[in-house]
């Protein structure tokens, strides 16, 4: 992997002001931002609210269209749109996950998921939108089934991590769940048949894994590679056999491919693999870095 710094340039388009406290997370609404549909973005904050921003087709600038408030009683840590864009789930330090629906000009909280013992840190919808996963400081990962009428039912509470779980992320095409934690590991969870979920793999230090908190993970478009980032100042790339994953036949083990170190000198909090194959990382050294695979792979 090499840092291709000639062809890519990040240009700041706009600064969105409105939140009264730290903004923890943002999420682009699916199926917006192209084909004439204005781009929509959700942001969540320490001010306990979520804001929805929409790009104006004429001026190109983003305006705040809605403020989702008076629901969470503590920091809203992350937000995620359902694949259809119809629902927005928000995870909060108040130990709940709220699900919102766009109703007319506003957003209405249609469901509140309770169960975590303390701060919920991340949410992820599976590819079909039929399942929702949450995780938190109570070390557990919860899987919820999405039922008609905006009902949610908990189908499994996954124990296994020995510390605070920072993020959960569903595989882009299969119902396989990944979680990463303050315990320095990444866990892979799969279903055995009837709602019987269990951990099928743990990527730890011994497997060329991270040596400190793993903050985030992201898949490439095809779903056979994954990038992770950590407090250990590195990014790691992992791979698995695509055909084995897709066959749904038992576990397709993930293996360490390479480690990117020396690019950030403070905790790397976030990583994302774009559809075009660019990996973006954001760290506490106030830098965003973009990585692309060089010709030799």
């Amino acid at each position, binding site marked *: 992997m090499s840092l291709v710094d000639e062809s890519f340039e990040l240009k700041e388009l706009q600064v969105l002001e409105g939140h009264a406290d730290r903004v923890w997370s943002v999420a682009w609404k699916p199926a917006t931002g192209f084909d004439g549909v204005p781009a929509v973005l959700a942001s969540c904050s320490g001010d306990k609210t979520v804001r929805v921003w929409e790009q104006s087709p004429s001026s190109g600038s983003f305006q705040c269209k809605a403020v989702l408030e008076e629901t969470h009683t503590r*920091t809203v840590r992350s937000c995620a749109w359902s694949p259809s864009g119809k629902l927005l789930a928000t995870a909060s*330090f108040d130990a709940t996950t709220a699900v919102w629906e766009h109703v007319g000009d506003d957003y209405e909280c249609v469901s509140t998921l309770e169960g975590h013992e303390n701060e919920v840190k991340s949410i992820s919808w599976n590819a079909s939108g039929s399942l929702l996963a949450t995780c938190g400081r109570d070390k557990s990962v919860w899987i919820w089934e999405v039922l008609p009428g905006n009902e949610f039912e908990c189908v499994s509470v996954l124990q296994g991590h020995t510390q605070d779980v*920072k993020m959960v992320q569903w595989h882009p095409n299969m119902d396989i769940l990944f979680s990463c934690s303050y315990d320095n590991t990444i866990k892979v969870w799969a279903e055995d048949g009837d709602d019987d979920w269990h951990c099928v793999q743990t990527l730890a230090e011994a497997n060329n894994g991270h040596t*400190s*908190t793993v903050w985030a993970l992201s898949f490439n478009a095809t779903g056979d590679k994954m990038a992770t980032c950590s407090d250990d100042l590195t990014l790691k790339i992992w791979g698995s056999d695509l055909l084995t994953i897709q066959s749904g036949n038992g576990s397709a083990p993930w293996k360490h491919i390479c480690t990117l170190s020396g690019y950030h000198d403070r905790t790397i909090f976030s990583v994302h693999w774009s559809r075009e194959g660019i990996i973006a990382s954001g760290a506490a*050294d*106030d830098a965003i870095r973009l990585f692309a695979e060089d010709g030799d792979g």
Partner: protein
Amino acid sequence: MTLGLINANPVVHAKKKRVARPLDDPHADDAVDPLEIYDYVRDIRDPEHPYSLEQLSVLSEESITVDEKLGRILITFTPTIQHCSMATVIGLCLREKLKDCFPAHFKVDIKVAPGSHADEEAVNKQLNDKERVAAALENPNLRQLVTECLYSSEL
């Protein structure tokens, strides 16, 4: 009266003489001065005892190191005993007190002095996890304790 305190008999030191900074100090505004930072934190009250962190030698002038070039500040504190369960509270107090004290690009690391605590690594990891610190400061009980330590400065 001292029932239940983890360290019932802390060693208390006299407060060090404070040097008044001259009003026409040319460097008053530019640099991030370790002594200035120390001034902000020396009087923080210990969570368990009615003494300041300076009086209990939890903090001293040498506790603060600043790397101007890299924009880093390191604060090292020494809990009064090896199994001090208040170590994370002291760390939170330091973070909260220093929150708005210097230019935004400065990064602050807070650690216990090497060898001074039985769970050194675990304490340091928590104190430097931005998300854990933010969540802890939202916890009403912890918030209350931190506020008491920061604002009871009738010492």
